[in-house]
């Protein structure tokens, strides 16, 4: 195995939605700085955008302002968000969307050339090729791209992130990238819990199954402060395909109904907005119907015309083509029968909820030299594509300024060797011992623990102290088992690190769920021992920091700050 040593001013880990925009922004603002993207796949089609997108879900349609957006997101997240972060990202939606449109993204417009709104915050796009479009812009900007290099850890020198280490899944070379400043943009984490489907459909998940929490885990291992992991994302999705429901609910206006045909959201949750209730309630509501024997639950699409059904299919073809094949393969016509829905496996996704790095308004993490953007960054839910772009832009600006002022850190060879040993251990174990556990085995073990004790679908995602303590104890054994993981080839080595990273995420998550003794987000994290929301004690952020030396996870709270006045539980 060889070592490739690279020096760059700015290292961006994860060349996805946030990463590509960050690369362009650095090069435009600081043409003297060298930028390198480290990406586990190929930036042309990696991460969440691989299949395409049909809408930009965070945009200020006519009449809306950053303040009205904050009010809505605050309502949607049950009264607790980092308002400074949400304000700063929404101020950049326009800038980012216009930029990507200029690069070639088709955005649907009316006769007058105005974007076509879908609800208050969405605009429709033909985004099948969105990822190659932004990847091309990143390349054209003069970014050096390391495709198929899986980041495994930061290089931390005296508390400063001075670059990162990764391995190539193509030839097993180790990449040591020394950087003045680093932006982490690896997305969220899927596969921490048992997925909705099994066997040859186990990766038929909503969230990108190749985003496995690497950025979170690297931060956790290095002692970065993390926030709000307990706000898991459990989405309402189309049954079986796990396709997004926004396309249907917002696209054609389809209320949820139970098996009796009752519009339960409209009746039981009228006080918080009915079918427009905060997102966690739109998962909580149907779960209660199913639990109480009134499932299956559907989105009622029976009022739509056959033309609308065609439009719906076209929209899915831009983002989630398997949805359309599913209907054809099961003889389902959404204009004649309602669309059955279900809730997803719990994901950790800072762009839908707000789990991730604790950052300041400049997206600086608590580690010197490290900035975070997109689903990996915490505190700002409702990011979606455009919010991730905005955070990439903000992080780029700040990382660029940091790189102008700071030189490379001195990196000891021992630091690199230590990570080399850790990163390649599963390959060596295979060569030396043959016998051991495969990444897949550990994945299933992890998912079983999380499913059964840390609020998986089987328990309606509910948790209590006693169950969580079992999860904590079972998870505590897994890190000692890492040494038994074997990988036969480089693809398996990648899989090994994916599961190792998810174990770190799971341990942090369990501590967060244990710590917040209230139910703020029913559906996402319902505590059966603390069933109510408690603003007096818990209107604050639950944060954690793992001690890199001892491995102990310390919990702390950070205060909520209201910037935009108004009732925190009202959408306007």
């Amino acid at each position, binding site marked *: 195995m060889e070592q490739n040593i690279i020096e760059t001013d700015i290292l961006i880990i994860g060349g996805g939605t946030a990463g590509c925009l960050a690369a362009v922004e650095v090069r435009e603002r600081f043409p003297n700085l060298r930028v390198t993207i480290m990406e586990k796949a190929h930036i042309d089609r990696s991460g969440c955008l*691989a299949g395409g997108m049909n809408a930009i879900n965070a945009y200020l349609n006519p009449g809306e302002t950053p303040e009205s957006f904050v009010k809505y997101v605050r309502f949607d997240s049950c009264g607790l968000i980092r308002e400074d972060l949400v304000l700063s990202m929404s101020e950049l939606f326009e800038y980012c969307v216009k930029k990507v449109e200029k690069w070639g993204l088709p955005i649907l417009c009316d006769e007058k050339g105005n974007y076509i709104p879908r609800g208050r915050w969405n605009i429709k796009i033909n985004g099948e090729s969105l990822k190659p479009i932004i990847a091309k812009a990143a390349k054209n900007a003069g970014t050096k791209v390391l495709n198929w*290099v899986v980041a495994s850890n930061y290089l931390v020198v005296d508390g400063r992130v001075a670059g990162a280490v990764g391995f190539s899944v193509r030839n097993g070379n180790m990449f040591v990238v020394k950087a003045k400043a680093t932006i982490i943009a690896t997305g969220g984490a899927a596969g921490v819990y048992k997925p909705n489907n099994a066997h040859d459909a186990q990766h038929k998940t909503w969230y990108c199954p190749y985003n496995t929490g690497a950025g979170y885990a690297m931060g956790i291992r290095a002692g970065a402060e993390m926030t709000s992991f307990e706000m898991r994302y459990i989405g309402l999705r189309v049954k079986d395909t796990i396709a997004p429901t926004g396309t249907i609910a917002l696209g054609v206006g389809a209320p949820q109904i139970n098996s009796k045909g009752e519009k339960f959201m409209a009746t039981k949750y009228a006080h918080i907005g009915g079918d427009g209730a905060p997102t966690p309630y739109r998962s909580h509501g149907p779960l209660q119907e199913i639990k109480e024997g009134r499932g299956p639950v559907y989105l009622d699409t029976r009022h739509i015309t056959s033309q609308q059904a065609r439009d719906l299919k076209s929209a899915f073809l831009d983002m989630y083509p398997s949805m359309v094949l*599913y209907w054809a393969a099961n003889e389902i016509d959404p204009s004649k029968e309602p669309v059955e829905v279900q809730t997803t496996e719990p994901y950790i996704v800072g762009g839908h909820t707000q789990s991730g790095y604790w950052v300041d308004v400049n997206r600086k993490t608590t580690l010197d030299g490290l900035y975070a953007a997109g689903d990996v960054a915490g505190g700002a839910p409702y990011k979606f594509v455009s919010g991730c772009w905005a955070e990439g832009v903000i992080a780029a600006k700040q990382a660029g300024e940091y790189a102008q002022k700071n030189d490379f850190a001195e990196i000891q060879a021992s630091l690199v060797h230590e990570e080399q040993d850790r990163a390649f251990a599963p390959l060596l174990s295979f060569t030396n011992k043959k016998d051991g556990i495969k990444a897949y085995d550990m994945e299933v073990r992890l998912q079983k623990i999380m499913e059964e004790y840390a609020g998986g679908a089987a328990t309606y995602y509910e948790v209590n102290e006693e169950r969580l303590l079992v999860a904590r104890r079972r998870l505590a054994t897994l890190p000692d088992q890492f040494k038994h993981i074997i990988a036969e080839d480089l693809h398996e080595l990648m899989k090994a690190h994916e599961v190792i990273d998810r174990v770190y995420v799971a341990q942090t998550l369990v501590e967060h769920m244990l710590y917040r003794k209230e139910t703020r987000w029913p559906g996402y994290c319902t505590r059966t021992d603390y069933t109510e929301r408690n603003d007096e004690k818990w209107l604050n952020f639950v944060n954690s920091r793992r001690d890199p030396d001892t491995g102990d996870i310390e919990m702390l709270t950070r205060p909520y700050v209201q910037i935009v006045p108004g009732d925190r539980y009202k959408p306007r």
Partner: protein
Amino acid sequence: MPVIIHADKCNGCHGSNNPPCIRMCPGDLLMKDSKTGKILMRDPAECWDCLPCVKVCPQEAIEFRLSYQLGFHTARLIPHIHDTRDFITWELIDTKGGIDKFTIRTKILPIELDEKVEGVAAVDFSI
């Protein structure tokens, strides 16, 4: 089952070491068989059904299938990229053979049949 590769249609992109289908898979699931020069799927259970590989293949050699647990045989969904690269026509075939077509605007960028990889020699792509 997710995607299947029709070996009779795959021409290996004329000896390409790093053909578009391999490059477009976000899960690193496609690889070249050094003996036949054709493409193999590593593990169908790891597939996300996202379809970039299907859309990018110039020979339409990669076909998308739903896992049988999710949908009945022989429904099919085949994207045809227009020569102008600004439209895709999706051909949807239901279980009874009924055909429907959807033509949608897009912006497909031209793609090279081969590409060098930073820090990696060409031979590293084959198994």
